[in-house]
């Protein structure tokens, strides 16, 4: 009997946890979501006086919004692509080869994250000013590339290291060249984890603001930068809210895509789960 009673006992800790999570994560989302679809919402009303898509119309009709969307997408795609080209071979080298100062180099990627980022950015901005990279697309690409290095090196290194060497040897044994082994065995084995890293760097770049603002201003305006200026300069909350909802779209599709391509367990493995 006692076990039956135990099973029916209410998990208060779990409920409390769920409530806190709801308040902290879901509630702000609901507020922002509501603002985006509110035509009129004045204090002290709990729900907006008038729902509607008026501010969507005005936001989406603005030229600067559309420029920032294209800018954000092309920046994120370019940074992710370059990051793959630079980091994946480097990660393979870190995982499989031994060369002088290997460990020092490997940990230097952490150093970029260890210092206050803004200070680092200001220092880089000083250099970029001389190189005419301020307010330049490629300047922002370079600065955002730095931000992806840690994910795109460390996670793929772990992925390559966890590929069983015997599997690769077995492939050599049945007649595959080293390149074929990499293509048919190593990459598919490490693939899900690497996909997680790529996704992480895409989404991370999309939402990156400090570098984009400091290096890109005034010519380059990404969506988050535009959103900040809306929030700072506009008395109308709805512009910022609409843009926030728009900003969810890429991460939402990214996660949908991730679930399709990658089964959940290996995806979690990529994040160290």
């Amino acid at each position, binding site marked *: 009997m006692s076990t039956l009673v135990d099973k029916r006992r209410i998990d208060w800790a779990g409920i409390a946890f769920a409530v806190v999570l709801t308040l902290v994560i879901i509630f702000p989302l609901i507020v922002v979501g509501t603002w985006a679809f509110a035509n009129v919402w004045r204090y002290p009303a709990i729900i907006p006086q008038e729902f509607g898509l008026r501010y969507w119309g005005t936001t989406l009709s603005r030229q600067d919004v559309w420029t920032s969307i294209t800018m954000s997408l092309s920046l994120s795609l370019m940074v992710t692509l370059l990051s793959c080209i630079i980091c994946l071979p480097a990660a393979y080298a870190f995982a499989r080869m031994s060369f002088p100062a290997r460990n020092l180099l490997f940990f230097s990627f952490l150093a970029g994250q260890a210092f206050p980022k803004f200070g680092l950015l200001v220092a880089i901005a000083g250099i970029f000013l001389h190189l005419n990279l301020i307010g330049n697309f490629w300047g922002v690409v370079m600065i955002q590339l730095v931000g992806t290095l840690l994910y795109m090196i460390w996670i793929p290194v772990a992925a390559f290291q966890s590929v*069983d060497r*015997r*599997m690769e*040897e*077995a*492939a*050599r*044994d*049945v*007649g*595959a*060249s080293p390149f*074929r082994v990499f293509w*048919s*065995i190593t990459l*598919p*084995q490490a*693939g899900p984890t690497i996909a997680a890293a790529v996704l992480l760097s895409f989404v991370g770049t999309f939402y990156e603001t400090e570098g984009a603002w400091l290096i890109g201003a005034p010519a380059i305006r990404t969506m988050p930068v535009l959103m900040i200026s809306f929030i700072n300069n506009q008395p109308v909350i709805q512009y910022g809210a609409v843009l926030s909802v728009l900003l969810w779209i890429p991460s939402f599709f990214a996660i949908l895509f991730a679930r399709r391509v990658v089964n959940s367990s290996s995806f979690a493995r990529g994040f160290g789960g």
Partner: protein
Amino acid sequence: MAVLEIQNVTKTFGSGSVRAVDDFSLTVGDGELVCLLGPSGSGKSTLLRMVGGFETPTGGSIRIDGDDVTKAPPEKRPTGMVFQSHALWTHMNVFKNLAFGLKLRRLPPEEIKRRVEAILELVGLPGYGTRLTHQLSGGQQQRVALARSLVLEPKILLLDEPFASLDQHLRERLREEVRDIQQRLKITTLFVTHGQDEALAMADRIVVMRDGKMEQVAAPDTLYREPQTPFVAGFIGTMNLAEGVVSDGTFTRGPFTMPVPVGDGAAILAVRPEALGLAPGGMGDIHRVTDFGTHGIVDVDLPDGFRFKAMVPEAREWKAGQKVDLKPRAFSAYRDNAVIYRSQAAS
């Protein structure tokens, strides 16, 4: 079909200080199964990996059917290796695992299908092509790994402790199956193991390795009955190896003495438990009696602590604490790592 010749092969690691394999020569005849047997670190796996092309010898040569493959990469060798950890490609199903090598050889799809199905039949897994590797049991995975090598019809099959990760029961069944398949295909095979049972059960010849060198090579029955060195004697089966001194034709270790017709000097007396008789007396004390039903094992301690193991037909005749004499019925004597005497009954 194929002959494997290993000539004076040496492999050093580091700056030449570690000799994993030291001037090793062996010829494996056509269709023969030779076991490399030795403790871990004896260089047996390194030797096998050199034959497979995964390590390059520091010196010496490896020939397959007369072709020098010493420097050839694994993909250019007519060898097929089965790894201890099976090393199946987990992102492919069984069929794709088996077909991968055939596809690399650009065989037509129907031919690939036919050969994969035939090899699955051979290893006792017909219809398993669509299974994923993690859906298979440990024994089935190892069968697929064997099939993956065999489907390419290699000239030399290399087995690197393929049963080490399996439980005892499965290991015994699988080694019989592998031996049957090997004999049916008459494929030249080099097999690495640290289990003497496996070696004795499967091999045509056994190479006992120690510190990168060949200690002895012989057929299983010869190896058990005529070990050339104390190391082999101790490694194959159980052997009492008593160090002592011979003077005037008598071997002495404490109160234990027995006539051995060799010259004076230090010597090692080797007696199998089944050749060691016991009689009431005073040479040693019985420390323990273990009753296995069919026979018993009696541990007898000399005063200096050296322990003999004797096999007796009836365990209940002996008790711990009893004082006994040791009566070897057959024995050998070693000096300077070589046999100097072998009694009549021992050979």
